[in-house]
């Protein structure tokens, strides 16, 4: 990542509070509007971010009770990095759409990632015992 990109980053630390994901959506919406994204793409970004936040809130069990968001603005793409310092999980499990079934409470995370992958153009997830980092990009 070059210096120019680093200059176009916005960082946000989110405490784990009820419905706090809505505040995060306002941030991503404002950034995407600033970048002149189309309305429909902004809506996709908002929902993807909601799902990412919910996943982290429900499953990370992070001791610091925080979520670290970074928004990287590039010419025609917006990348959002969502990081928690939680317990991590087996990302291979989530890749299996046969296992990830719809509505059971224990599988809500599966729906979230599936939605994120459909709403965003690029998605990458890394998870280990030190936490989880989700990197998702929307192209204009």
């Amino acid at each position, binding site marked *: 990542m070059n210096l120019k990109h680093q200059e176009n980053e916005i960082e946000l630390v989110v405490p784990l509070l009820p*419905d706090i994901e809505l505040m995060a959506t306002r941030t991503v919406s404002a950034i995407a509007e600033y970048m002149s994204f189309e309305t429909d793409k902004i809506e996709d970004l908002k*929902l993807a971010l909601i*799902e990412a936040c919910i996943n982290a809130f429900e499953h990370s069990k992070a001791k610091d009770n925080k979520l670290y968001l970074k928004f990287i603005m590039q010419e025609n793409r917006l990348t959002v990095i969502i990081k928690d310092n939680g317990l991590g999980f087996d990302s291979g499990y989530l890749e299996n759409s046969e296992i990830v079934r719809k*509505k059971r409470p224990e599988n809500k995370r599966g729906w979230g990632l599936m939605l994120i992958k459909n*709403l965003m153009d690029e998605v990458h997830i890394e998870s280990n015992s030190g936490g989880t980092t989700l990197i998702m990009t929307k192209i204009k």
Partner: protein
Amino acid sequence: MEKEVAETFDVKVIRKENYAIIRTEGYVNNLGGEKISEEVDRLISERISKFILNFEKSNIVNSIGISILIEVIEKLVDIGGKIYFCNLTKTISKTFFIMGLTQYAEIFATEEEAEKSIVV
């Protein structure tokens, strides 16, 4: 802080002869989904089995809220009922398709179009 961020969710029910319109307002999360489910249960007990869900004032949802809607749809399928959604954003329509709601529920652009479909 919590009160500033948390969104309220409300429903307005318009009861017709053999169906009901439920107009939602706010974030369809777990609480919003449960509120819709409770209203549907109440109306089922009054022998209503067809519902129009108007999301004109609900442009934000999450997968937990939608999962609850799937349970509502399954319940209605069991009793021969149906849900008709209207005024969805493109993103919500897309999400409903991904999560399989469109297999058992219809989507209309407007409440009027949904009503016409029920009446016919």
